[in-house]
């Protein structure tokens, strides 16, 4: 009884709690100053999708629809057509980002490494409908980040 009285008089519990606080003041920080600082990413990071091109500028996608078939969330919709040169090309390649669960199966299924998931994870939508990435959008993303995608893809290939 007397012991408890002394403890509460000298704020013993408070000091005990503050001890953790004061000790952490001198430890190395674990948080990041986002958006000025960013966490490191694995080359296998699965962010926003992109469609790639060959160095000649020809799109890689041959419209085989394997990604559409493998997609567990049914987020991909593809229409194809035969182009004048006799190759099959997509006329429509839509990914619904609301449905997509970023599992990366599409990337794995692709026989020509056309659809990839990039490191981009910072994006937002302002209007309904913007969540659907069309073929043009995907190709633009691919063109913009091709250098990084090339590095990541070769890195992945080495780790197989």
């Amino acid at each position, binding site marked *: 009884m007397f012991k408890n009285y002394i403890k509460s008089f000298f704020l013993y519990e408070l000091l005990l709690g503050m001890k953790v606080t004061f000790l952490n003041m001198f430890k190395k920080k674990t948080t990041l100053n986002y958006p000025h600082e960013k966490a490191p990413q694995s080359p296998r990071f699965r962010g926003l999708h992109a469609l790639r091109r060959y160095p000649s500028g020809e799109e890689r996608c041959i419209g*085989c629809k394997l990604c559409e*078939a493998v997609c567990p969330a049914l987020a991909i919709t593809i229409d*194809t*057509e*035969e182009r004048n040169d006799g190759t*099959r090309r997509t006329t429509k390649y839509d990914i619904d980002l609301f449905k997509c669960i970023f599992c990366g199966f599409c990337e794995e299924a692709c*026989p*020509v490494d056309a659809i990839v998931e990039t490191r981009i994870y910072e994006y937002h939508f302002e209007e309904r409908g913007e969540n659907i990435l069309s073929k043009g959008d995907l190709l633009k993303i691919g063109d913009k980040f091709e250098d990084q995608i090339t590095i990541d893809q070769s890195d992945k290939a080495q780790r197989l």
Partner: protein
Amino acid sequence: MKIKINNKDCKFEKGDTLIQVADRNGIHIPRFCYHDKLSIAANCRMCLVEQVGINKPQPACSTPAIENQEYFTKSELAMTAQKNTMELLLINHPLDCPVCDQAGMCELQDQALMHGRVKSRYEQEKRVVIDHNIGPLIKTNMTRCIHCTRCVRYGEEIAGIKEFGVIGRGESMEIRTYLTSAINSPMSGNMIDICPVGALNAAPSHMKGRTWELEEVKHISSHDCVGSNMSLHILDNNVFRVVPHENKKINEVWISDRDRFSYEAIDHNDRVKKPIAKINGRHTEVEWDQAFDIIKKRMSEIDANKSAGFISANSTVEEQYLFQKWLRENNIDNIDHRVSQSNFDHNDKDLMSKLDIPIKDIENSKSILLIDSNITYDQPILSHKIRKAFLKDAKINSIHTYNYKYNFDTNNSLLVNPNFLSETLIDIVEYLSVVTVNDKTLKNFNIPEGVKKNFKGLNNNSIIKISNDLLINNSLILLGSNLINHPEFQLFKVLTNIISILTKSHKGYIGEKSNETGAWLTGCYPSKNKNLNLDGKIGLNVYESIQEKLDLYIIYNLDLIDFYHYSELQESLDSAKLVIGFQSFVTEEDKHYYDIILPLATTYESPGTFINIENEWQSFVQGCTPHYTSKEGWKILTKLRLMQSTGVDKSLDYIDILNEVDSVVRNDTLHVKNNLDDFDVKKISSNKSLTRCGGKSSYYTDNIVRRAPSLNLVNSSTNLVSVNKKTLEQNNIDLSKNKVIVKQGQNTLLAELVIDENVSDDCVYIINSNKEHYDLGKQYQTIRIENV
């Protein structure tokens, strides 16, 4: 007798090969070259299995099963052999599955997964084969070919037209057409199905979809009288492709190209997309309700006796039943489906198109007589059955007005002028009457006096030969569908009937439409059928209805060129007060005749039933929902009935209609009248002048087929006029020119001239394959031919 496969006891009969026994017992043996409808080649070596006691693996497809032997399909010896074969086949096979149309239904893909090695050890270059264009229906990619030769054997054995062959040996072995010509067989599309890899693919659906996206719906073909069973593959509410569905009684595992590729017409430019009504003389698109109101209002203004309705024999039984019911409820009795028939004499002896024996029994006939039938192109499935009979040594004879190309050989063939075809048949009757004079079973049958008076002594040897062949047991007479345009068509039917009675042979009238039997049974003709509760009033037939120049015409699912009396019809429609069309397709030229056009779903988009030539009822569901705003025929007709008559149950749905049709029509068989006593031969034409003959092109038979783009590319030049040399010289035609002018009445046509000895004398052979041919005039009429 018994053998053991994988320690399982299996029964077999003498002559069975191992693969047949295994298939029956559910034991899977991989194979490429073996196909149960084709001969055995044993050239792919994929089906190697182990036979106990023999240290080499044996090909299961060509090894006969031997009593008490033991076989293993999955022993180490068999598995190694299969793996090695697969590796060999894959050496030259490209790894382009992602771009190949076959992927997902590819036998090579499946078997490589089940029986192949995981990794290829081959690192050298692969072989590349140059593709040849073999026509608009089949897309080739011969680099993928594994030389199983199924397509070559199919051409030789089933289609009967040798077009594909093997050229070269070893590395340079190649399968191609002999002279880089296009494939011309009317059943060529089946090569696509039997090809185990992606070497032969359907050209119209090439690269448009993947196999795993498709939904399969069973359907019945609407383009010939046998009702081939087929499966529609649906992608996004569109028919993606059509493949055969096995029916041992009818089409086995084959379908004709016409059934396979005509689906392309569904979205043709001529398709009626919305109801169209003529308001103030101008065609305007209206809503359905508005269109129904206009029909109700304007039909009530017109006298029912001055109205007529024509329905296509390609429509389903349900549509035909409701159509005649709707019209008869409105007191319209002038109903008919025989629009391409030219003449209606001997009408009381009218017989529907019909085959006495089941289709599958045709192959057992010992003797077949074809009367002016281009059967190989018009009815490929029936032709296949006749070919099977031919391969079993049946005697096939033909009496024709043009030397048609068949996929079997004929014993005797007789080329006659169409004006003298009836005389040829009467000659046969005359010969038979002499031969069968002592036949006691024919005691009660008298040849009508009308026929007898035309007997004039025999002088033709081939008629005797043909008649003698008919006297063989189990013979069959087939009357071709082209003749429906002939003015003496009814006479041919009766004469065929008499010949079949005299020779005790079976007979068949081959109809060109898919549901002629249905149209007869449902009463889509001027009749007093008791089952349909009609009061006995007989209406006008097509020809009379057109000639009477009535006030109201209702045309259901027919192009105007489907009518034999095409030019008269145009005049009658011009003078009519109201013309209603229920149409899937209307050409721009035909549009102005109509006051109201209701968009009708095609057979692909509506459920229904077809009754084929052997009276087999085959129902199907809709493949996809109707495109645009079109509606199924039964819905439109039911709605009209509800609007116009009282006492129609409001809650009618498709099943009710199906049940009603079933109860009213199913047990009704039209009686064939054999009372021929008062029959008289009325000679309609025996003029010696130049006559136009020829039927329809087999890809121009109905409103769907003639709009199918790929099929219409098969015949590259359609504007042809064939005449034989003798006739040309008699008419002073300059043979050095390749163009001529043909004239019928006021109409002229400039066409390419073909000097063709297959045409009979004094005939101008024109196959109707475009609208100009119909504008020129009718078949079997006098024609003139002049130099350019």
